[in-house]
């Protein structure tokens, strides 16, 4: 048995080795994607694979503005309740079936109705999706929703063959059939996802590799070693601590881009008995904690100063950032005063949950040491990330180091986290005023008026602090020398159009 396994491994290694000589591009990923069914995916990393596999109705340009992809143009009705989208002609699915308004409507129907779909909330404003022409798709809404285009520029707008999806049902993710520049060839869970060039792609000339191979390698050091040794051509999410040495390496290229998401601490305010301590019940204690953290030092110590410090879901200097509330400096004195005002006996013991990635634990220890100066005694509990999320949902936490990869529409960066019904409101924060402001903002087409509404929520949130925002990451990509045409995007998604060498 063991010999057979060994032989198979050897043979496949030899086979892979010889095939790699063709124009292959090997990309190292930070983690293995979940299901490759666009209706079911919930991870960021799956977007990286989808970008070569499944086109979306809308994409974003390098400035994170929405542009058409499988759509060619679109128009809104006067009342904002009907969205008409014209679709690209001459597009074929990987199984040879034609892409048109009818297949697009069926895909949206499946995304909205399949019980195991994770797209239902994102598309909840759609009442019906109909083909009103060969290439004209009409969406009727049950209420105005300015976030819809952004949803159709994400997982929810990725198009696939409805015939293949119907035949495969829940198992569609095991062998997805889409319309992208590359078609699905093979997946070995935890090891690799192999895509092959789709000759009938509508823009096939822009894609220069015969195969794209994605390999999940969670350890950043190992991932970097693989691109250094030439076993990988490109890696995403390089560790900031490795950045200086990559800059000095002539055989490597480094690309960086500020991410549109945020990282911070989520505090249990109303989710079960663990929210009832001083931290969960008194905003002054949370303010004290926030003031005890030196965000700049945290950035320097853990991330080599490569990230951007922050105090809001939007990064300083970006469109949605509220300039009236700048990043606070560390103030241990004030933090102590606040704790005294709150009548808290110090040291105040609190548990902070962190992911078990080394950087997350390092960050946890820095916060632990900083908060100790103000009178907090933080114990750290490191768990694997999926466990952390599920425990947060169940309310089994005092506070938790969490982050968000970010979406181009602001609503998706805030409503889900502080809205009373928010899917990611693990801390069970409830504030009717915030809910009302968020609902108003969701229906407000004028960006300036919309920003004013978000600024009003900021004024409330910075006092109540259900989330302490700390910093915004940058995505670092390391490529071997010789690859041309790569550009990093703020959403972190790797686009291979025009990439060669």
């Amino acid at each position: 048995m063991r010999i057979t396994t060994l032989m198979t491994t050897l043979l496949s290694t030899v086979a892979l080795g010889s095939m790699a000589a063709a124009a292959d591009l090997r990309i190292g990923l930070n983690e293995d994607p979940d299901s490759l069914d666009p209706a079911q995916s919930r991870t960021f990393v799956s977007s990286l694979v989808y970008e070569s596999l499944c086109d979306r109705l809308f994409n974003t340009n390098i400035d994170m503005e929405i542009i058409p992809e499988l759509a060619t143009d679109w128009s809104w009705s006067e009342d904002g309740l009907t969205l008409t989208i014209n679709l690209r002609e001459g597009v074929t699915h990987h199984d040879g079936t034609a892409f048109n308004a009818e297949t697009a409507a069926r895909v949206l129907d499946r995304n909205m109705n399949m019980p195991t779909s994770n797209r239902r909330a994102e598309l909840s404003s759609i009442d019906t999706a109909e083909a009103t022409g060969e290439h004209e798709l009409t969406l009727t809404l049950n209420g105005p929703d300015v976030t819809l285009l952004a949803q159709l520029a994400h997982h929810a707008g990725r198009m696939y063959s409805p015939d293949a999806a119907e035949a495969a049902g829940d198992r569609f993710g095991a062998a997805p059939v889409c319309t992208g520049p590359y078609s699905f060839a093979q997946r070995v869970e935890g090891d690799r996802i192999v895509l092959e060039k789709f000759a009938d792609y509508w823009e096939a000339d822009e894609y220069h590799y015969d195969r794209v191979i994605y390999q999940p390698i969670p350890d950043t050091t190992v991932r970097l070693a693989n691109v250094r040794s030439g076993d990988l051509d490109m890696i995403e999410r390089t560790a900031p601590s490795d950045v200086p040495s990559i800059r000095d390496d002539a055989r490597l290229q480094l690309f960086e881009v500020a991410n549109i998401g945020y990282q911070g601490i989520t505090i249990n305010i109303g989710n079960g008995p663990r929210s009832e301590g001083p931290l969960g019940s008194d905003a002054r204690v949370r303010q004290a904690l926030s003031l005890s953290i030196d965000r700049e030092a945290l950035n320097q110590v853990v991330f080599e100063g490569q990230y951007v410090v922050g105090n809001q879901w939007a990064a300083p200097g970006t469109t949605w950032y509220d300039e009236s509330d700048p990043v606070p400096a560390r103030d241990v004195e004030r933090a102590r005063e606040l704790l005294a005002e709150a009548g808290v006996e110090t040291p105040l013991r609190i548990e902070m949950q962190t992911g078990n990635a080394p950087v997350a634990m390092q960050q946890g220890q820095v916060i632990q040491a900083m908060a100790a100066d103000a009178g907090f005694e933080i114990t750290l509990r490191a768990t694997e990330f999926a466990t952390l999320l599920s425990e947060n949902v169940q309310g089994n936490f005092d506070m938790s180091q969490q982050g968000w990869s970010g979406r181009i529409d602001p609503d998706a960066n805030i409503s889900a986290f502080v809205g009373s019904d928010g899917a990611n409101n693990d801390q069970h924060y409830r504030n009717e005023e915030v809910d009302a402001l968020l609902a108003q903002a969701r229906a407000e087409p004028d960006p300036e008026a919309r920003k004013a509404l978000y600024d009003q929520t900021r004024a409330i949130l910075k006092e109540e602090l259900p989330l302490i925002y700390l910093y915004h990451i940058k995505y670092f990509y390391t490529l071997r020398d010789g690859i041309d045409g790569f550009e990093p995007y703020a959403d972190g998604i790797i686009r291979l159009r025009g990439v060669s060498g």
Partner: protein
Amino acid sequence: MTAAVTLTADAAPAPRRNRTWGKLKKNKSAMVGGFVVVAFIIIALLAPILPIPDPTLTDWGKIRLAPSAEHWMGTDEIGRDILSRMVWGARASLMAGVISVLIAMAVGVPLGVIAGYFGGWTDQIIARATDALLAMPFLILAIALAAFLGPSLTNAMIAIGLSAVPIFIRLTRGQVLSVKTEDYVEGARAIGLGHTRIMSHYILPNVFPPILVQATLTIATAIIAEAALSFLGLGQQAPQPSWGSMLATARNFLSQAPWMALWPGAAIFMVVMGFNLLGDGLRDALDPKEN
């Protein structure tokens, strides 16, 4: 052998202890092992009075400094003195090794004696349960138990201790089986002594030497297990130091700060080697067939 009837266990060990020590002294590698072990024990015991900084004291201005006069082993990823963390880490490692083996012996040896002495159904139940546990690799069992108990150094010690229990049951039971037919045990039974007294005064002292050897060797395994659990985040919790967790962090800075991995790696290697050499030496010294 007739002499043993009168000597029994109370008197027997004295001459043997001298002979054992004599043999051990002549065994060079055992002495080297013993020296290493003693040295680490002294360092661990002296940790509170040594002139070293607090192992959890951070300094944001001194991140990952190379070894220097001020920080003999350098500083770590959040500016703590590595020498101090190594010294305090030695405490955690040695304590974990010794305490988990004591736990294993406290549970395993009595069960082994009972199984071997009484035989029959008692033996069947204990021995089969032991076999079942032994079928599981030691470290896997320890990881599973530690994950179940929750991450902390105490729980890691309990997990490692419980995982090592079957080794001691099996060893003790085997020894008891060979000893219980000896004349002096028969004699003790003949003069009407109770089971408890026979087990504690006649059998236990005579099966103890191999258990001692096993204990020394198991301490080495337990130290590695503690390092492994801490490496995985299931042992010593931050910010308290442990060689295993230090290694886990150092792994991310292998190219930028290799010394961070060097010290804990070397220390684990030396202590484990020390205990192994000492254990081997003890085995030879306690073996009555070897001269």
